[in-house]
């Protein structure tokens, strides 16, 4: 779980992304129960309506579903669905920034390519 909420994005978006991250990292598995909106709102000291908004966003995206009387659970196939969605926005959210910073400090394409080639992470 993220320690602190930042001010750069709407809180409900941060909540939904945080849950998505946990699903991607297998901290939350498919068919596992997710913290309730009350638990989330108490933990982050946010308005329960905001926590609910974040959860509902994930329900709309097909990432979570509700088991009546029990709570919210991770949908089957949620992990893949998240990966797919994030792929689409990867360029916009991450790559663009790298390119703009590289441009600012004078790193050319070749240097940038070299950095990526040499990384052992991917």
């Amino acid at each position: 779980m993220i320690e602190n909420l930042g001010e750069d994005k709407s809180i409900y978006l941060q909540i939904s992304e945080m849950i998505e991250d946990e699903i991607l990292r297998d901290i939350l598995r498919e068919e596992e129960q997710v913290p309730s909106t009350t638990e989330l709102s108490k933990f982050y000291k946010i308005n329960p309506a905001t926590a609910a908004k974040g959860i509902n966003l994930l329900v709309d995206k097909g990432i979570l579903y509700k088991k009546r009387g029990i709570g919210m659970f991770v949908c089957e196939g949620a992990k893949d669905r998240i990966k797919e969605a994030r792929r689409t926005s990867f360029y916009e959210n991450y790559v663009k920034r790298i390119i703009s910073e590289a441009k600012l400090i004078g790193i050319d394409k070749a240097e940038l390519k070299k950095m990526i080639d040499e990384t052992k992470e991917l």
Partner: protein
Amino acid sequence: MGTLSGKNITKTYGKDTVLKNVNIDIETGKIYGLIGRNGAGKTTLLSILTAQNPTTEGTVTLDGQPVWENEESLSHICYSREISQVTMFGPNTLKVKDYLSTGKAFYKNWDDDYAKELVKLFNINPKKKVSKLSKGMLSAVTIIIALASKADITILDEPVAGLDVVAREQFYKLVIEEYAQTGRTFIISTHIIEEAASLFEKVIIIDNGEIILTENTEELLARAYRVSGETEAVDLAVEGFKVYHPESIGRNKVVTVLAEEPVAGFGEDVQVEPVALQNLFYAMCVDERKEA
């Protein structure tokens, strides 16, 4: 239950106009934050909305019914304000338990068990005289009364003034819990804005006796930006927008922009950052002429 509405509220004390033609609608089932500088009129507005202070002009209604001296309306409202430690006749020798028992007598939905629980939680000695309480305990008593009243519309006037950070966090947790459980309406006025900002579904900003905005917190912050860069570039980028609190340092300028709607971008020549509620409030309400 419907809306608590104030229409065309004006309040004057002699020649002093404290509230000028204020219009406000409080929808039930939400947590509101009321922020404003000292003397902006927060307490006056709240005491007028709760019929504890008569208007000079204007009306206050709950669900269409006037609130003034109205048993039905009053039974839904609790306004817990700062308890005075001195009276005109000397120190306030009433005890905490006197306040609690008065609350029990007058608040229809008073939950005594909850009150006792909270008294223990905040470590208050109910037999202690109000004049002998520390600031923190005083705030705690107002919080206990507000929460235990179980009123549909609960208003707290600066409840965290005097509380240390641990007690403040405790308070926020209690409000969230209560709200999650009961959906009661809360209106909380505070000076400690940033901590509580994520609690407020809607925020009301009052300045100089006028309400300058009432809006969903998220939607408000979605259209607020901090634009910085070279002075000329900034001026160009923010042309046509409402700009607050411009600051300059060297060849750089920073401004706070509040647009009518979220803006896609301000161009490549400037840096744009989001604005925290506290900073937006500061930018909007700081008196440029008197700025320290």
